């Protein structure tokens, strides 16, 4: 039985908190780092060091997210929201940099699991005609999370008595929303069917750790994983260093950087929505190729131009294409795998392959672009050169990625997934 429109709208609203707070939480750390540094009297080197365990929380989230194939999507989502809220509140109470690091690590674990399950639920619950648009809408809120931090910064929330801690206390909001609406959220129909199948003895109750690597799914997992990896290294390198690059290599003031981020992100978020619509009209593969090419071109322009007007539009379009590609990537990471391993496959792709970008992308740019000792010696050229890493991703999508436009999930058989796709012409 198909879900009613009313229920799907409610579900989308409930899931939005997962993506919104992923953008929000990550941006607090990026934009309020100097304030946190001053509170804990931490050196830049120590701050850099603490980022590693914090970001590894997203890797650990993999082990939590894969449980959604066993216990169900709904309970895992609800407990992840509770876990995230508790750790966000504890972060606000941190007494030293190590307490802060531990609580942020915990927060990332639950946020990562929440995000993975939210994407899986949208893919499983929305009919094919509306799935792409729903993904686009859901992921738009990741960008809006960043904008919210910029707005709160502009309003001077960090100058209040609670300083930066107030930003983390806002993380309690999703729990309040869910407390009111949780009874109206149901388990996905596909998971319920899968559970019944298992109870009839037609499937294993416990999904093996390496089930997503089994022969029917291996090719697609490697393929989607490499596309994620090739994108995430240059992309996270660019996002982590743009503000520093603008200030140190282009002479922007802190205020100009904040205004650029606010306005360019605000307009660039339209990219998510347009991506969702294009996926329906053109298909997954052409949309992904357009977005990857756009992301590379505008990022290179952004990190090469000295003209501030050009830089503004380049930032807007780099955000629009670079971040806006998320809906189609999420479709690749979920639609190509059957229900019994979908949650786990999505977690492998995101929490193993994409996490490499979180860890190595910013590190590569920092090491190679170091103004004193780097082999390249500047951030602008380093990011531009790394963008070339996206070329293999574009090639893989063009040459191998299966097209799932207009196909219901039940129509995608593992055998189909094994076939080599015809390149786009």
């Amino acid at each position, binding site marked *: 039985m198909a879900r009613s429109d009313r229920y799907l709208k409610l579900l989308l609203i409930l899931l939005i908190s997962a993506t919104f707070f992923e953008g929000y939480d990550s941006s607090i750390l990026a934009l309020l780092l100097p304030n946190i540094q001053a509170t804990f009297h931490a050196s830049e080197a120590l701050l850099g060091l603490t980022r590693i365990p914090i970001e590894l929380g997203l890797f650990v989230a993999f082990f939590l997210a894969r449980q959604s194939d066993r216990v169900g999507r709904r309970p895992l989502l609800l407990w992840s929201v509770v876990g995230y809220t508790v750790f966000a509140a504890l972060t606000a109470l941190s007494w030293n940099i190590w307490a802060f690091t531990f609580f942020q690590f915990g927060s990332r674990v639950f946020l990562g699991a929440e995000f993975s399950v939210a994407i899986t639920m949208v893919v499983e619950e929305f009919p094919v005609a509306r799935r792409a648009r729903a993904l686009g809408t859901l992921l738009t809120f990741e960008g809006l999370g960043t904008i919210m931090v910029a707005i709160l910064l502009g309003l001077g929330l960090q100058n209040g008595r609670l300083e930066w801690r107030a930003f983390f206390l806002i993380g309690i909001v999703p729990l309040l929303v869910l407390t009111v609406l949780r009874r109206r959220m149901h388990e996905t129909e596909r998971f319920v069917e899968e559970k019944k199948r298992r109870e009839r003895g037609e499937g294993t109750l416990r999904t093996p750790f*390496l089930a997503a690597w089994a022969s029917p799914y291996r090719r697609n997992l*490697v393929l989607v994983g490499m596309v994620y990896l090739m994108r995430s290294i240059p992309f996270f390198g660019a996002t982590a260093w743009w503000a520093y690059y603008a200030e140190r290599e282009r002479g922007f003031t802190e205020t100009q950087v904040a205004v650029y981020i606010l306005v360019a992100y605000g307009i660039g978020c339209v990219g998510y929505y347009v991506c969702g619509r294009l996926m329906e009209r053109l298909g997954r593969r052409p949309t992904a190729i357009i977005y990857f090419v756009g992301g590379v071109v505008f990022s290179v322009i952004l990190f090469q131009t000295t003209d501030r007007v050009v830089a503004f539009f380049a930032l807007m379009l780099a955000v629009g294409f670079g971040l806006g590609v998320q809906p189609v990537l999420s479709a690749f990471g979920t639609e190509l795998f059957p229900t019994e391993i979908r949650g786990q496959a999505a977690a492998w792709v995101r929490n193993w392959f994409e996490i490499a970008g979180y860890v190595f992308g910013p590190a590569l740019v920092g090491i*190679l672009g170091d*103004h004193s000792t780097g*082999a390249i010696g*500047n951030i602008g050229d380093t990011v531009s050169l790394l963008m070339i890493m996206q070329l293999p991703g574009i*090639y893989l999508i063009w040459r191998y990625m299966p097209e799932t436009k207009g196909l219901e999930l039940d129509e995608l058989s593992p055998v189909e997934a094994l076939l080599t796709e015809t390149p786009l012409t």
Partner: protein
Amino acid sequence: MAVQGEVRRATFVKVIVIVLVVIAGLGLLIHAVNAGHHRPEGAAERWLAAVGDTGRKGVDRQARQQAERIGPVAIAAPILPTTHDPHHSEFADLEVGKSRPSGTDIVRVPFRLHEQLASGAGPLKQGTLVLHRSGSTWHVIALDARRPGEKVRSEGGPPATRAPLALWIGAVCLGIVLALIAHFITRYAELSAQRAAPGSAT
């Protein structure tokens, strides 16, 4: 029901070990290509950034130590604001330009910054830092007025460093090599999956 063609844990561990070896190899390669670079522009920028933090609550002592390692903080007196917000750096922004040789082991690095006042960004300060090389490290020895032609990038000056054309061509070639590697990995995954599938000839 067991998943068909399931991967053995030992195979997975082998793949993880290979990936870690590749990462370690890349780390060594990057370390090797980075070795021997000691740019005066970087030293000048670090010194100015550390000087800016000497008035910032919480990090002031460490910043002073860091700055003193590169050059005396006293040299910066003419560019420091008289009053400022201790929650921020003493400079609202900071940019350095390309160095120019000015004698044996001496270079001049132009800079441009705005003082950070308690009320917001303050006046613009432009000048040139004079650095001296001792061994492989650079030290700030003086603050000077700019000479004609000394400009930072945002004023139309040349970039402090620029990736050579060969590096851009090399990066495109690397992109093609990576695409080929990705192609072969995908084909290998496809073939190994087909071999492992039930009913295959092997």
